[in-house]
């Protein structure tokens, strides 16, 4: 049980094909070899005590820091170094030595457990280089795209800023125009206003009379329209053709309903039509469209003023929108600008997820049903060293007995701008993976990719 090889001969093939032998205790990285000198007392790396060298890797823990047992599982806090020639070297907790599970691709962690491990370092190395290569390509292209995005964003920003400046200028002119028109309007309104004030009552009466007159004219006109056969009577059937008069709004205007409107009469003449008109005038649609009476000059001035005021408001809105856009944190080089006012969708087996960056995230059942808000734009919330790797959307629709829905969007480098996955790790807390060139870093020099022999 306690028989363990104190020293291990490690044989590697370097890229040159020359075998090199390096002796050191099992589990010790090359960098720490000098501390493990054979036949000399070993001092625990924390300096806590010194033990005879034959107690190194003797499957009993003597050092508090675990440094005397780099190659056995004896110490609770030890770590084992595997060289993994062909792949990358790594440390594993020494509790994984001989636990029956292959952790090191070079199989060196399972030297006494009976576990059948195969050396997979070469494959892994190839695979990793392949992946790294692809990643590097993506990063490279992505980074180029990013440069374009930055350029476009810069241009866009300048344009927008220019536009805002122009608009501010136009706005000034508009404001002046509004003021001018206001004066015109007020001047035009003056007589009207004075008349109103002087003869308010008369004015009201006059207005009522005018209304009545207009109504009468309308009534007469309607009578003529309705009297299709021009027999001087409006009949039930003639009125029935006006479906808009349906009193119960059920879509059909029945004969009984019409009779009701006509006060029970089968037909009415111009004099008796007045009572029918009272019943129908609110709903009645004329058969010919007509221009309203000519506008007074005051009315025209008012309209001109209101039009220009509206134009001013619209311009204000536009300016505000552009300023709002300009105020967003689109990244250190504004590389995320292009995502603004765009939306990206991902369809899963059940739902369609929709990410509209800097706006909101939502979810809609694939087969009908209403949309659920999974959060509106909150903030960048990546790690301290790069907050632009994570977006947080908050305050979505509330959950029963739970929090409001929220979504974390993780950004990774990619050539395309796509939502690649969504999940709900906790109830009502969503996670989205999103690729975009905007987070691609400047690629490192390709020549520095590992080739699996830095150990030697």
């Amino acid at each position: 049980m306690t028989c363990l090889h104190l020293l291990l001969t490690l044989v590697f093939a370097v890229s040159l094909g020359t075998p090199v032998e390096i002796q050191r205790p099992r589990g010790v990285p090359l960098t720490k070899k000098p501390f493990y000198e054979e036949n000399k007392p070993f001092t625990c790396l924390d300096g806590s005590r010194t033990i005879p060298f034959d107690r190194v890797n003797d499957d009993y823990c003597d050092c508090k820091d675990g440094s005397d047992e780099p190659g056995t599982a004896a110490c609770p806090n030890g770590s084992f170094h595997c060289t993994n020639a062909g792949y990358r070297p790594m440390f594993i907790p020494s509790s994984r030595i001989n636990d029956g599970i292959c952790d090191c691709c070079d199989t060196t962690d399972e030297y006494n457990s009976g576990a059948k491990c195969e050396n997979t370092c070469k494959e892994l190395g190839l695979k990793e280089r392949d992946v790294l290569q692809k990643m590097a390509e993506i990063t490279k292209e992505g980074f180029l795209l990013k440069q374009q995005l930055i350029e476009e964003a810069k241009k866009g920003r300048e344009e927008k800023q220019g536009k805002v400046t122009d608009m501010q200028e136009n706005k000034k002119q508009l404001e002046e125009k509004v003021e001018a028109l206001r004066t015109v309007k007020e001047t035009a309104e003056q007589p009207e206003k004075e008349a109103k004030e002087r003869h308010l009552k008369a004015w009201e009466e006059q207005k009522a009379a005018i209304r009545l007159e207009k109504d009468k004219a309308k009534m007469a006109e309607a009578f003529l329209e309705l009297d299709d056969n021009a027999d001087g009577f409006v009949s039930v059937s003639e009125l029935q053709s006006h479906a808009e008069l349906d009193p119960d709004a059920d879509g059909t205007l029945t004969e009984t309903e019409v009779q009701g409107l006509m006060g029970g009469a089968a037909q009415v003449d111009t004099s008796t039509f007045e009572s029918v008109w009272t019943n129908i005038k609110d709903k009645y649609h004329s058969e010919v469209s007509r221009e309203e009476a000519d506008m007074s000059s005051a009315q025209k001035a008012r309209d001109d003023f209101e039009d220009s005021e509206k134009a001013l408001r619209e311009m204000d809105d536009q300016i505000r929108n552009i300023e709002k856009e300009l105020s967003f944190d689109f990244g250190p080089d504004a590389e995320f600008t292009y995502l603004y006012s765009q939306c990206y969708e991902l369809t899963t087996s059940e739902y369609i997820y929709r990410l509209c960056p800097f706006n909101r995230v939502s979810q809609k059942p694939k087969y009908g049903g209403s949309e659920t808000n999974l959060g509106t734009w909150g903030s960048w919330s990546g790690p301290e060293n790069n907050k632009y790797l994570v977006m947080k959307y908050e305050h979505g629709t509330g959950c029963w007995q739970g929090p409001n829905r929220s979504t974390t969007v993780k950004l990774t480098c990619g050539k395309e701008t796509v939502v690649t996955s969504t999940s709900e790790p906790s109830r009502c807390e969503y996670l989205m993976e999103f690729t975009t060139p905007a987070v691609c870093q400047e690629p490192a020099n390709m020549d520095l990719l590992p080739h699996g022999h830095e150990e030697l």
Partner: protein
Amino acid sequence: TGSSCESWDVKLLQVSTFAVDRGNFKTCDQSAFCKRQRALKPGQSPYRALLETLELSDSRLTLQLINDNNKVHLLLELYRLQGNMTRVKINELKPLRPRFEVPDVLIAEPPTEPLSVLSKDDNGVVLSLGAKNQRLIVSARPFRLDIMQGPEVLLSLNSRGLLAFEHLRLHKDTDKEEDGLWEETFKSHTDTKPNGPTSISLDFSLPGVEHVYGIPEHADDLKLKTTDGGDPYRLYNLDVFQYELYNPMALYGSIPVMLAHNTQRTMGIFWLNAAETWVDISSNTMLDFVQGSSEKPQTDVRWISESGIIDVFIMLGPKPSDVFSQYASLTGTQSFPPLASLGYHQCRWNYNDQEDVKSVDQGFDQHDIPYDFIWLDIEHADGKRYFTWDPHKFPQPKEMLQGLMDKRRKMVAIVDPHIRVDSGYKIHNEITSKDFYVKNKDGRNYEGWCWPGNSGYPDFTKPEMRAWWSSMFAYDQYEGSMENLFTWNDMNEPSVFNGPEVTMHKDALHGKWEHRDIHNIYGLYVQMATAEGQTQRSGGVERPFVLTRAFFAGSQRYGAVWTGDNAAEWDHLKISIPMCLSLGLVGVSFCGADVGGFFKNPSTELLVRWYQTGAYQPFFRAHAHLDTTRREPWLFGPENTALIREVIRQRYALLPYWYQLLYQAHKTGMPVMRPLWVDYPKDTATFTIDDEFLIGSDLLVHPVTEEGSRGVTAYLPGAGEVWYDVHTFQKHNGAQNLYIPVTLSSIPVFQRGGSIIPRKDRVRRSSACMENDPYTLYVALSPKKFAEGELYIDDGHSLNYDTKKEFIHRSLTFANNALTSSNLCPDCNFLTSSWIEKVLILGASKPSKVLLKMDGKETPVDFEFDTSMSVLTLRKPGMNAGADWTLLLQ
């Protein structure tokens, strides 16, 4: 899983306040038979023994009783059972129809011992109960039984005249409707009672007893309270949504066993009845202040059940361990679980998909935290059709299971007993075609609402149904299953969302018996059939692991139990201790509570404290409700990850001890997690303690269960004994209240002086990975420099320990400065590659030399001595854990 709710509508209406809706569950007053029975007050019993009908065969005495009010005859049967027990059965002499007697709980017909009549006269009969000067006195008028030892009355039956047996009868128009004899309604549910009133009741008096325990499951203190002025303790398996603490309301399981204890004796009463049962407890000690202390304390207990017969086992102890073995001889012992199931279990409603499972599994490795089982709740199945997998979330279950197997880890998937009514579902179709569903009173299949919607409930009381259910766990039937997939039976009370009190209608039919008769045993049968299925799938080779929420007497034979849907609150952490202690006292050792609390989100402090408590309870599983935020151990910052990692590691290091205790529980019925009084029966200071507990006899744990705690006061029992802090090895005297200052990392645990605990201090990814690792022996010396312990080793998963005696069982003794390992099972055969890497002797003095004597040779052993704590460490003695050896300190 689960939560449940009376109906989904109700659930949605529920406001977020956390509390049970008490209105959903009956009080005694709302349960017609309980109300009728409780209206009877103590007094002269109408029952009289007809001594002329006495018949005594070798081991059975029968005697008729007559109720002088209605002239109905009852038949009393008395048995003297082997192992100091008495069985009392009372049934109608000639019932209109047979009355239900609970099958499948007793492991066999209990062996009897001869009874003999010592004397007989007109007033009664005196019977000898064999040795120990014990007698059973049958008094005739009124009928009453007294069990005596010498001049002392141990226990009396019907001494308060509360024997009441509602005989079966024909429906008369004169019966008053308001008594609920032939029909009763609760909320919108009407219970048609075609058999009319059938309830039974009997009282027991316990002179000299002030402390009674047991009758789980209740969210209440360890020591049972008197029920005067309130409701009795209720035993009726119910799915209680968001249960409240410290009250006698029924919960998920029922074990009708009560223990009575005083400094002289421990006794037990086992009331074998599976119908709804209420238990009243009263005590005269409250009156002592008035009457003076001359009166002997006495506890009076009264059992009331809705149907069936009176079948009582009186376990006379006298030691606590005697009561445990007596009860074990009747209903069996705790199943011996696979070693891995004593490790840490990671559960959540729900791990969403295979990817999620994989990343949680990796999370444990990344944070170097061991675990053995990851669990899948109801969402894993395709539309809550158990035995299936959601095709989108779990398209490749075998791939997932293989991934876990590669890490030497395991999985549990839930299989509930409600079956989705769906003609496209194989399980439903087979149950339908075999006519295995429970029927409603009209004979059609009973249907109720549960997780899948409309569901049928298989009739698990049918042996053919159980056999078929078991066969569904075969690898070729349960698609996607593998040998590292185990099972969780939830909702087996059974839970019926739209049923009365969220369970099945009492007039539903299981063959010729009403659900009323069998209710409390339904859950046991579900777990029984599931565990049997797991054993069968391996050809009878592997041990099953099945967790259940509902249980009954005997459930201990089938696996583990947890305390159901608790909440992330400090009081729920506290109550986990008395709840599991109560279960342990009545046979169910493999008990745990959801670590972290099921409902709501725990504070980080509560979560850490709960891990620290759960790691020292037998079944150690974290679980969380669907609506909670994620709480895998590494989500609370590196400091808290480290605290949780540390305590899970402590658990793994102690696995050899836990395993040995489970083996002991399996062999003897001794509880694993114990109240202090079990080991210190004469120390009255221990009788009400339920904020600390023993694991076996040798570890005492006082978990920190107060928010913001800066210290706890632990009672260390045992005058003249010593206890060692397991973290510092500091020695403390017994029989004292010890104040222990605590920080967030503190878990007050003490090892008893006089004990030897084997540990595996090399903690790995899972228990399987530790199989061949060496042991460290922690020898804690008593003041007399003595210690003893055991070491049990087997393959950890198969039944070969039982069928082929493939295990190692050794006794470890330290006496006269020598530590010796000797074989407790010479005809056993098992080889281990584990060895002894280290021996720590606590409370030792420094030897000049240490020698290992083995195979006739003596070899010196290196050692170190820590003077400040008197700890002697023997370095790498290296002997095989299965060998005979002695270590000599000179």
